[in-house]
């Protein structure tokens, strides 16, 4: 994959590599490195060399984890890479990157409100961004597997 070549400088941050269908590279990183990762992307590709398309949080109660995936599109090839990290389910906290990459804002707000992932530094996080009032009152995150909604 030509696009991956340009990310050599991030090599030390990427702890594992796998893929999801159809043949999309999944690059794992440690939660603490999220800001270094995105600063590194900006440096390697330029601020207009990529965009954050989708942020997806998946509850994995069986493993005691929440999986967080950042689907990033590299330009100009428009190739999608998945940057993946795992957070402890009882304390899913990670630093926000929405100041570095404003495009990450909606995804972070959504993952917070629906699954409880806290993005430190994102001042716009709020309960009720998407979840209904009764879920908020019960302190429930609808997309958690044990949610009572």
């Amino acid at each position: 994959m030509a696009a991956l070549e340009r990310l050599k400088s991030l090599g030390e941050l990427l702890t594992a590599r796998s893929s999801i269908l159809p043949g999309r590279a999944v690059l794992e990183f440690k939660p603490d490195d999220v800001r270094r990762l995105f600063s590194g992307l900006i440096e390697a590709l330029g601020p207009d060399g990529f965009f954050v398309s989708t942020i997806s949080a998946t509850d994995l109660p069986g493993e005691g984890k929440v999986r967080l995936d950042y689907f990033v599109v590299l330009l100009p090839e428009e190739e999608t890479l998945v940057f993946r990290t795992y957070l402890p389910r009882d304390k899913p906290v990670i630093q926000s990157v929405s100041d570095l990459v404003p495009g990450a804002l909606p995804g972070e707000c959504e993952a917070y409100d629906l699954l409880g992932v806290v993005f430190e530094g994102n001042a716009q996080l709020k309960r009720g961004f998407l979840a209904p009032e009764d879920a908020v009152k019960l302190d429930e995150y609808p997309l958690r597997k044990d949610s009572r909604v």
Partner: protein
Amino acid sequence: MGGRKIVEVPVTLEVPVGPQHPALHEPLLLRVYAEGEEIVRVEVNTGYNHRGIEKLCEKNSFHKNVFIIGRVCGICNTVHTDCYVRALEHLLGIEPCRRALFLRVLAMELERIHSHMLANAVLALNVGFENLFMNIMLDRERVMKAKEVLTGSRVMADYIIVGGVRRGLDDDKRDKIAGLLDALAPRLEYYKRVFEEDETVLKRTIDVGKASRLDAVRHSLLGPVARASGVAVDARASERYDAYGELDFNVVVKSEGDVWARAMVRWDEALEAVRIARQVLEKLPSDGNPVPDERKLPRKFPAGEAYTRVEAPRGELTYYVVSDGKGPNPYRVKIRTPSFNNIVNSPFMFVGYSVADLPAILASLDPCISCMERVTVIDVENGARRSMALRELAGGA
């Protein structure tokens, strides 16, 4: 004189999840703060109506979800089902016959045309050109007819399914669709010219609501909004899904980044869509029956994850489907609609422009037809609230 005012724009969107903000009484889309006539700040409130679709998908089977997913958005239901179904096909390792793939493209391109005509018609309405709105909507009926001939329904196609499509296309129907496209194409050319030449349109759309290329990329803007700012992204060209790998088409890009450029991108894309649809009709393969037997579809899905992208009329739409291999339901379905990015990240495109430009800028983002809604203008100084049609703002509030 020129006091401070707040404009509240209500709306509902096509996002799959979304509620009312507990602090607000109305499901607002935008709250716009103005000093005199100048917009100084915009808050986007995700006051959508929560339907709990992602959770609903975990409670229903992979196959049943195809029909729920189509109802995430009535305007672009075909691209939603196509994207979700392709994720399932990746998990199952199956590929439909080429005839089915061509037919899927035809359905999606017809949908693109109707959606773009609707978006530009609403834009025309929002700049005070009701006659143009009515004319575009009249011609749009040809596309609705074509969709009905192909899929059996004007709006909710329920056309795409794992393994192919749900209806075949015979020669009579093919000719009927070709005839409708022949009557439509010159009208699209005509409307494109109107948008290039008409004073009313030009005055209200040129240099309004601009987004630079850098801002478009950094804010993850998508679709015609991004392409109008010079960002050459189009999932059809990069993914070459279904039959796009065998068809010839251009990715339409402009550089002005304003409301006008977005409208022009939509007209050019509608014309490209006609071109693609004609190619499909001419080159339609006969390599098999495009309609699978729904009773024989695989019910057991192996464990795996798939992430699919589709170019919806509003931009890149993505589905992330996780199967744990244990049952008939998916473990996770994540849907990210293009409007989620475009609208939530839109505030910067309004700031600095006049309140009278608000309807045009909003319409250029193609949120949904509910921008026909009434807005509330609050005069901060005296607390007076006025309700008016969004397009009336264009006349000067």
